């Protein structure tokens, strides 16, 4: 099961990359990146998953004493949380950029933003 999830994550990354590489519209690229980001998150979570264990929260179901046997690895989850937040930060920034670029050049076509080169 985990392998399926992980494979899905990887495929999402690849799909996202493909979109980002082939769309010339800035917004489409950003959308593609959000897909890839989601893919990464899926991969990370799947890496931390362990069959038959429960979430790393101590409550009535999981007592502190036998937590070692009962919970899954909490670290990837913590990492994903951070990654998600950072991802939205970057996405917001890219969007702001896209807006600014559109305002300036009246275009969202990345192939036309080549004033700087060489």
């Amino acid at each position, binding site marked *: 099961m985990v*392998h399926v999830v992980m494979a899905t994550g990887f495929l999402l990354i690849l799909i996202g*990359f493909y979109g980002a590489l082939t769309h010339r519209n800035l917004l489409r690229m950003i959308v593609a990146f959000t897909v890839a980001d989601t893919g990464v998150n899926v991969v990370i979570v799947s890496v931390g998953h362990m069959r038959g264990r429960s979430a790393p929260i101590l409550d009535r179901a999981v007592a502190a004493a036998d937590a070692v046997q009962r919970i899954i690895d909490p670290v990837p989850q913590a990492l994903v949380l951070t990654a998600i937040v950072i991802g939205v930060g970057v996405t917001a920034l890219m969007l702001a950029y896209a807006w600014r670029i559109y305002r300036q050049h009246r275009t969202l076509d990345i192939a036309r933003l080549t004033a700087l080169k060489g």
Partner: protein
Amino acid sequence: MVKRLVALALLAVFGLVFATLLTGYAPDAELNQTARYYAERTAADLGAANIVTAIIVTYRGLDTLGEVTVLFLAAAIVGLVLAEGAHDRSRMRPPVGELLTTGTRFLVPMILLLGAYVFVNGHLTPGGGFQGGAIIASAVLLMLLADPLRHFSHRLISAIESLAGILYVAIGIAGLFLAGGFLDNRILPLGNLGELASAGAIPLIYSLIGLKVGAEFSSMLASLSETEEP
């Protein structure tokens, strides 16, 4: 066309890399040393029931501080980028439906409350500062949708955001002096596992994070909404 072929070829290589990672992956049967440490010690050392929260707020607190800073930066830069595009408000837009306006008035306090609940209970239940902050921001979003011309006090938002940030850093530094190190939550009593007032400074920090994240998202949304349509 060439571009797409090249892209496919390149991604094929990456696919190969990923496939290798995938096939080489075997789930752990036991927790590794780090996870084991967290599973065994979190409750005793930090007094937090939600281990993920403990990791986020304390063990990897520096990451989280960086994380909120990412949002802070994003908000600041979005503000910076959009500052020049803030449109003049003389142009009127058609009013939004009555239903939405009324619904908003009713919903916003509840959403805010829910957000607060989520981050205050972060150390006990799933959720925390980020999720709570996002929920708070959704209230702001709702208000924006209901009344696109509503002018949010950037000053207020940024004051909340800054105060929360400064307090967060201050608590972190307090850890240096009062406890074991930067962002150590044990500057406050740990209390009993599972209670609201437990886990030392974790609820406090997560609340601050919630406020801060909420403010940051709100600030972003507000900035975006204030831009003129070209």
